[in-house]
């Protein structure tokens, strides 16, 4: 796009909703989708006299998340009030963490989109807990009718994860978010559903342009209102182009205009300036006197660290080193989450063929899951069944086609692999029987024999099909080998 050397600088603020049953400071349900203002109590309504008491589970989830993104867990953390007036914030302040966040100074490893064999470390400044605000429903048409306020979401626990400005492209951002979501869903810390708002992304982006031997920084733009990973990627691609184009025209730098906010319009596929607040924000943070500090003993942090188990990035590496999978295949399986990883590993072990297991899972299993909209936990073909089935394929007892028949049968009827094979009438065909079958086909098709002798080996293909018709149990590989042997090739 440019005639100058450009470095894109992106930092992300990601809010994830923690998967607790109740809110951060009261015992109302944190579930999504209830009728408006039915999951509220004096505490989350901000009624006079009500007091917050923190949810232990939220603390644990935050620490688990923090450890998984390589953060340190300081011995002491506390709650602060961030003060501003808005009708979805009934107390007039949000309980958050200002100077002593629960998680600090971590990093996330991502695969470099430019070079799949190399890894990038994206720094994480901090991750802190805070309560969510409620929902405002505006009159989008005229802007004149009253705004409706639903406080069900008010007080649900959020973890805000703030990255260093280490990301260099929209593709890296996408990879960062994918990895983050993978880790947090793997740990069952959050659902990370952008559609439901359980994962929200704000991006700070600007460009460093090498110009006349100097480094020029364009004004930082905070991009908001991105509702899917795809939207994040497109918004940032757009914003990078726009900033360069604008700079070429107006030459404005960070000194002229330190920071603006732009929203992403998913329909028009462009970012637009959001109206700035006239007053500068002064949140008047101070420690919340209704809450006590949190002191987490180092032993407890260690316990939680031990409980994390193998993280997705580690599984990804192990599937390559131990199972010999290609990075792409390992990635697909790891991305499906812990249940699928466990499923794969069992199938791989029982079949004794890691690659066949990987290929079957990526094709047959995942397609079926998608078609039937079920999760691997509820899948009708167990890992033991599939492992046993693929073992027979590896041993040459079944060909892929017949194995698929068995697979389909298992999807419909509860039975063992053994029973399915019997029910489908699949039996091992004796090699003398195959010899006879092949000889009969060759006799009936002299042209094929000539073709093969003339060098067109693939001509036997048509005979394999006919053999299958005559005896569905005939193994195509075996038929092919027999045909070629009899022709004398």
């Amino acid at each position, binding site marked *: 796009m440019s005639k100058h050397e450009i470095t894109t600088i992106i930092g992300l603020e990601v809010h994830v909703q923690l998967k607790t049953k109740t809110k951060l400071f009261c015992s109302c349900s944190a579930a999504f989708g209830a009728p408006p203002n039915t999951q509220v109590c004096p505490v989350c309504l901000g009624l006079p006299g009500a007091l917050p*008491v923190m949810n232990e589970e939220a603390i644990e989830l935050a620490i688990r998340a923090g450890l998984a993104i390589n953060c340190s867990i300081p011995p002491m953390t506390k709650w602060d009030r961030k003060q501003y007036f808005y009708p979805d914030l009934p107390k007039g302040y949000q309980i958050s963490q200002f100077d002593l966040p629960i998680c600090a100074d971590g990093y996330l490893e991502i695969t470099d989109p430019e070079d799949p064999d190399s890894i990038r470390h994206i720094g994480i400044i901090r991750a802190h807990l805070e309560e969510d605000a409620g929902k405002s429903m505006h009159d989008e048409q005229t802007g004149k009718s009253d705004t409706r306020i639903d406080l069900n979401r008010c007080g649900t626990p959020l973890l805000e994860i703030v990255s260093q400005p280490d990301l260099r492209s929209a593709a890296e951002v996408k990879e960062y978010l994918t990895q983050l979501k993978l880790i947090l869903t793997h740990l069952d810390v959050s659902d990370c559903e952008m559609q439901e708002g359980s994962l929200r992304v704000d991006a700070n982006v600007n460009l460093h342009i090498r110009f006349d031997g100097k480094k020029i920084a364009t004004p930082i733009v905070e991009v908001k209102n991105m509702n899917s990973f795809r939207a994040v990627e497109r918004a940032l691609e757009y914003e990078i182009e726009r900033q360069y184009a604008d700079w070429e025209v107006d030459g404005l730098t960070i000194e002229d205009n330190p920071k603006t906010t732009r929203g992403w319009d998913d329909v028009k596929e462009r970012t637009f300036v959001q109206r700035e607040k006239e007053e500068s924000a002064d949140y008047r943070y101070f420690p919340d006197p209704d809450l006590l500090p949190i002191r987490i003993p180092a032993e407890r942090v260690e316990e939680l660290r031990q409980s994390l188990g193998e993280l997705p990035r580690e599984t990804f590496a192990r599937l390559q080193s131990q199972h010999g999978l290609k990075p792409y295949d390992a990635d697909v399986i790891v991305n499906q989450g812990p249940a699928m990883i466990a499923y794969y590993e069992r199938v791989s072990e029982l079949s004794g063929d890691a690659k066949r297991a990987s290929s079957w899972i990526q094709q047959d299993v995942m397609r079926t899951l998608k078609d039937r909209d079920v999760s691997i936990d509820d899948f009708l073909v167990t890992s033991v069944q599939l492992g046993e089935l693929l073992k027979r394929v590896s041993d040459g007892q079944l060909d892929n086609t017949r194995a698929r028949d068995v697979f389909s049968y298992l999807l419909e009827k509860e039975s063992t692999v053994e029973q399915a094979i019997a029910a489908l009438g699949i039996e091992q065909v004796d090699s003398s029987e195959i010899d006879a079958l092949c000889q009969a086909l060759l006799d009936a098709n002299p042209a094929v024999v000539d073709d093969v002798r003339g060098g067109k080996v693939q001509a036997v293909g048509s005979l394999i099909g006919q053999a299958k018709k005559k005896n569905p149990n005939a193994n195509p590989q075996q038929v092919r080998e027999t045909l070629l042997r009899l022709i004398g090739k």
Partner: protein
Amino acid sequence: MLDSAAELLRLQENGDLTAVEITEKSLSAIESSEKSINAFTHVAAEKAIETARRVDAKRAAGEPLGPLAGIPVAVKDVLCTSDMPTTCSSRMLKDFLPPYDATVVEKLRVADAVIIGKTNMDEFAMGASTETSAFGVTRNPWDTDRTPGGSSGGAAACVAAGNVPLSLGSDTGGSIRQPAAFCGITGLKPTYGRVSRYGLVAFASSLDQVGPMAWSVPDVALLLQAIAGFEPRDSTSLNQYVPNYSEILQTTDLRGLKIGILSESSETEALDPAIRKAVQDAGEVFRSCGAELVEVNLPHSEYWVPTYYVIAPCEASSNLSRYDGAHYGHRTESIDTGSEHGPLVSAYCRSRDEGFGAEVKRRIMVGTYALSEGYADKYYNQALKVRRLIKGDFDNAFTQCDLLLGPVTPSPAFRIGEKVDDPIQMYLCDLFTVGANLAGLPAISLPGGSDSKGLPIGIQLQAPVLEESRLLFAAGAFQTATDHHKQRPQPLTETK
């Protein structure tokens, strides 16, 4: 004039009086004094009679009864009640009906107390005279030209007027002890965390505490017993054993007890000579009961009031942000839709301007300033550090003595209107009381005599954290040895 709660309990047990009779007496006493003193924001006559009937029925049926059965109790209008408005004496909450009871109110109900009504106060508990109430001043039953003190002015006045034997107040900087002193009754501010704050409308969260008010120590102990204890819904509540507070009130023998006298408080020029004398006399009473008097120092006491008047407004400015007319409370009827800040901001600003009185606005402004960018270090953070120094002084003093004796107020009850336009003068009323709030200590105000005009004078005892029993023990001995707490104002007529 109603008897003490202890006496009323006895009379009911003996069958000499029913809860309904007591409640009717209380209601008629309120009716005859209310025009003169305006102690209540709400009197729940029907509900009170209903409760009293239930108590009598329970007693008749031989069912177990709570420790306050049939006793009329007045509740400061800063505590949430699900069946009565909770206004904080503010226009902002004029018709506010909470959907829940404060924990202390729940406890009163469990104790079979008869909640008679809600008492007037300084708006959002900000004041020392009950003059900042949006519903009119409360007057002192000893002299209706004078204030009953504040902010729990209604709570103190209704006891002093003989309306009820027991009353619940709240104390952020002296709001129980100062009105108790002005009205010649006994008032106790418990250790921070001893009594649940759940449902206590917050003024300054790190200082607020609910406490009992009554004529004498045994009644104060009785009410404290009913409200003290751990509260899982209040993160700052203490999970500590609650002793039997009445158990230790049997003796005047204070041998072995060391009572500290503050050398600096007696030197304060601001202190009225009659009060200085009352404190000295009280010291002699304690000595005559066998206690040893020792002189102690609290080197940072001159910083109590400035520290308090940073921390309290800072927390208040934040706590009062919720009153914006969006979800409850007063909303302006004249929204400026063409405002440069838009209709919403205009609605906020106007609703809050209309809903709050001058003192509340002043404190919000001070607190907002002291927390704002560039000033928080100088004011708020510095005050938090000085607060630790102040607490250190108390910790130190209590290595030399068991209790501290001193004045409650610099002067007896002042005239209505005398200080209302001078915030600093009003703030200096808290000179001797805010220390206990800053350090989280229990403290009690006791009748200690009167001045030449016959106005009551209070003396104060302060104890280490969770030593309410020690406080009540010494205070009980003092009241056994003296008659100050038996003095009563002239009955009020309806002429005023």
